[in-house]
């Protein structure tokens, strides 16, 4: 919220007269100016001693406002931007990779929903290991339920790298393990704090260099959001939507893949449906439903929603 007086130094047109006139109409910051009708304001300024100067000041503010939103890109520039940067990250699980046309897409938020012990955490650990070992980039893992197991990750990493023993001290193993950053979060506010720190870090890192964060996993986002969601209050839903918007912004602006885990609740006709309600449905780009086949090691995954594939496709996979 930049107050108008702080702009006076760089933009001398926004002088004390202009600020005074705005303050008399309740406009103290640039955001206030955005929620006022500028033409009505200009009309009221006609009785001022120097209306031309006022008009110039308003034009100056509009130029500043022009810098506040993302730039308009045409189709060609968009294609260039996405083909240069957005890759597909393999998850290490052949079945899921083929279902999703290669794996987790950078720039998209993927949701994995499933009842307990349906393989969600195992899948995330495998994906984190594969991305760290094969794609040589950092993974940020937010763990809300103490389910992160470094032993399991070491097993997956050594399997991807092809080394036989877990205690192998080869450089690549050490480096791959050190690329996975695990943080424990237990409430939504600490998650917000962590994500803002991540955003600051992503802003400063150079695109295309080795060691940048390309995958963010939140296990599980429903345990952070469900406690604050109540039936009629709007604060809980506002926090949920803000969290979702922040995740989409991180994915879109900094080209990372985001994977979030959701649990399920009972739905119509006894089939489980993902938790967090109708309002959450608009947040993820891709929604997958996992379930565990009774009596076998195989897990079943199906697409509930995808922005470019047909829903309903499904496959089975096994995680050793």
């Amino acid at each position: 919220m930049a107050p108008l007086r702080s702009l006076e130094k760089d933009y001398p047109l926004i002088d004390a007269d202009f600020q005074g006139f705005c303050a008399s109409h309740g406009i103290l910051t640039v955001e206030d100016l955005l929620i006022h009708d500028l033409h009505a304001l200009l009309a009221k300024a006609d009785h001022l001693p120097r209306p031309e100067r006022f008009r110039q000041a308003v034009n100056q503010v509009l130029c500043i406002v022009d810098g506040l939103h993302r730039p308009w890109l045409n189709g060609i520039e968009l294609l260039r931007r996405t083909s240069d940067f957005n890759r597909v990250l393999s998850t290490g699980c052949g079945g899921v990779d083929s279902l999703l046309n290669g794996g987790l897409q950078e720039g998209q938020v993927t949701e994995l929903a499933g009842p307990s012990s349906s393989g969600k955490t195992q899948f995330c650990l495998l994906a984190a290991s594969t991305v760290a070992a094969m794609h040589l980039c950092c993974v940020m893992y937010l763990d809300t339920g103490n389910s992160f197991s470094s032993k399991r990750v070491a097993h997956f990493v050594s399997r991807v790298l092809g080394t036989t023993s877990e205690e192998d001290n080869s450089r690549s193993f050490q480096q791959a393990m050190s690329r996975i950053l695990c943080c424990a979060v237990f409430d939504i506010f600490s998650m917000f704090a962590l994500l803002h720190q991540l955003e600051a870090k992503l802003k400063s890192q150079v695109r295309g260099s080795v060691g940048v964060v390309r995958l963010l996993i939140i296990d599980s986002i429903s345990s952070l959001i469900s406690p604050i969601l109540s039936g009629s209050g709007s604060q809980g839903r506002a926090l949920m939507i803000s969290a979702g918007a922040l995740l989409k912004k991180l994915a879109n602006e900094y080209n990372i893949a985001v994977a979030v885990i959701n649990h399920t609740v009972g739905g119509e006709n006894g089939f489980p449906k993902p938790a967090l309600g109708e309002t959450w449905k608009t947040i993820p780009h891709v929604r997958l439903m996992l379930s565990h086949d009774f009596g076998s090691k195989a897990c079943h995954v199906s697409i509930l929603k995808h922005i470019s594939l047909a829903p309903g496709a499904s496959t089975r996979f096994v995680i050793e």
Partner: protein
Amino acid sequence: MEVRRWIEGDETAKEMLERVFTQRSSLALPPPLHRIPLRSGDVVEIAGPSPSAKTQILLQAAVSCVLPKEWKGTYYGGLGQTVLYIDLDSKFDVHRLLQMLKHRIVGANGHSSSGCDEEIINMCMKRFFYTCCYDSFELLATLKTLHYRLQRENLALENHGHVIMMDSIGAFHWMDRACTSFVLEGYNRKSISFQNVMVIVVGELRKLLSVHSMVVICTKTANLGNYVDDRNFGKRSAPDNPDSLRDIGNGRRPVFREYMPSIWQSLVTHRIFVQALGDQVAVRKHRDGMVYSLEWSLPCLSFSDKFVVTDAGIALV
């Protein structure tokens, strides 16, 4: 002499009609929006629960808008307009747009020839402009500066019409509702509430619609409240705190909660309701997947169209 000139007028009625029909011509969009032709100045709202292929409908309309009517002897049937896509949901996939465009071009040509295709694809993609907004302030900033940007660019391009597409107008609704409780210092300050933001959005859109020849198409996520099933009385789920229920008179009446303020509702001139038919009809799986139904609620048509989403776009069933 001055008075005589004033009485005689600037143009005859015939000249006026010719001018209006060329500058503000009507748009015939492809299925599933083909039932009602749109005139410039219209605001269309496509509402539906998630997921219901609303973004796919927008992309299909965008492809038709950027294609030219005819080019190098081949008839494409497009509208030759510029599309300004404001993405509030960050759901846009440019490769999907390209895929749909390529299918249309190959369909019109009868075969694909890479040389010609490249040229026309480049021409169409240059007419498509995209921006995304992550909160209401960015949306307001975009709309306020859009008029000046259009004026600058109109000097360069020929004067085609524009279509503004906004994906999910209610995307920031919960966040703005929570902002109402912020305490601002200073007297006389307008609080940042959903109502105030929408007042400015509607004001800017009205100004744009009156100055430029433009159509606005928006999607809106409609949260289903009650399922009122006339046939099976037992299937009644708990209401979701409805503020105002609205019926869309049809056999099985879905009602949804309207959360957009009345100023937005007064701007909208056409309303469409889309939903997936997966769970309402027992097993209704077309070979391409989910079947969706589309109903025009304003102006109210008594039948509904059914469509599926294919690789090439949207196909009516």
